[in-house]
């Protein structure tokens, strides 16, 4: 570990990058630092997921999944840790996704154990959304982002504010994406321009 910390300005990402390399090289001190740096992120993700899906969250379960998360990075010659691509995301985001997926896997196992097989088969056939029929969108008529915005608003029932927050954009951007998508779809189906401005049904705010 001692050789990897350089003098001068280093961002947390740079530091993490060096620590991850040292962990892969089998440096015990680097592993201790990695655990200290990210145990909070892992713990938070696991507690929140268990709280959401289980009636009762057992602290022992949370601890077990935390242990499993770091163990998963460590075992098998660090194959999972090696798969982390520092050019694509921050380590904190990546390990949040990993921890959350392990927590989901744990919940799945509990639910499978306690659920009649017929219910599991039904839930598989249900897909993700509830009973409402999905809107049909022809390919290549609207952009992927416009398509996603329509799904978020019409299939998932999000409002403009929520959609904007999830996509980290301004509300006006969502209104604009929605408007352009509807306009293109109207043209595609030969329905003419329609209203001068298509109002977004999920738009409860003005700005």
């Amino acid at each position, binding site marked *: 570990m001692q050789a990897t910390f350089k003098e001068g300005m280093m961002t947390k990402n740079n530091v993490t990058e060096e620590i991850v390399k040292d962990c892969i090289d089998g440096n015990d001190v680097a592993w201790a630092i990695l655990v200290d740096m990210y145990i909070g992120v892992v713990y938070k993700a696991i507690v929140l997921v268990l709280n959401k899906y289980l009636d009762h969250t057992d602290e022992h379960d949370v601890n077990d999944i935390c242990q499993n998360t770091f163990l998963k990075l460590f075992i098998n010659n660090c194959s999972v840790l090696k798969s982390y691509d520092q050019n694509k995301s921050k380590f904190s985001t990546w390990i949040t996704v990993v921890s*959350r*997926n392990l927590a989901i896997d744990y919940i799945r196992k509990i639910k499978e154990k306690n659920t009649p097989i017929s219910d599991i088969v039904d839930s598989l056939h249900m897909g993700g959304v509830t009973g409402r029929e999905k809107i049909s969108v022809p390919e290549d008529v609207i952009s*992927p982002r416009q398509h996603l915005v329509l799904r978020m608003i019409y299939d998932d029932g999000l409002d403009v504010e929520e959609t904007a927050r999830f996509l980290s954009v301004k509300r006006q951007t969502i209104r604009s994406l929605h408007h352009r998508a509807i306009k293109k779809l109207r043209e595609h189906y030969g329905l003419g321009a329609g209203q001068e401005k298509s109002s977004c049904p999920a738009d409860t705010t003005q700005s």
Partner: protein
Amino acid sequence: MDGAKFNSIGCSDRISGNGAAEKKKEAGNCPDTNTFAGYLDNKLAPTERDSVENHLADCPVCRNDFYEIRMLMDQGAKETPEALADSVKNNLQTHDGAPTPGRKIKI
């Protein structure tokens, strides 16, 4: 939006760092962990971002994952039990690094 509108929990295809998962990814299924995290961090190239958004538009399970992880990231820190970090470190130091027997855990 609390995710309760969805019946399923978690995309079963998203696995990271093992061959089977990468083959699934190549077959055009759900984005892998790196790509998903990159999308959440807004660090993907435009073409890759379009590809993820195309997938999210068609996959309600991944959309639910996306909502849930975004909300996790937006939540403030939680106080971590003091002994937990030491316990994790001890476990790593005493583990031989071999894969744990039994069912493979998907991440």
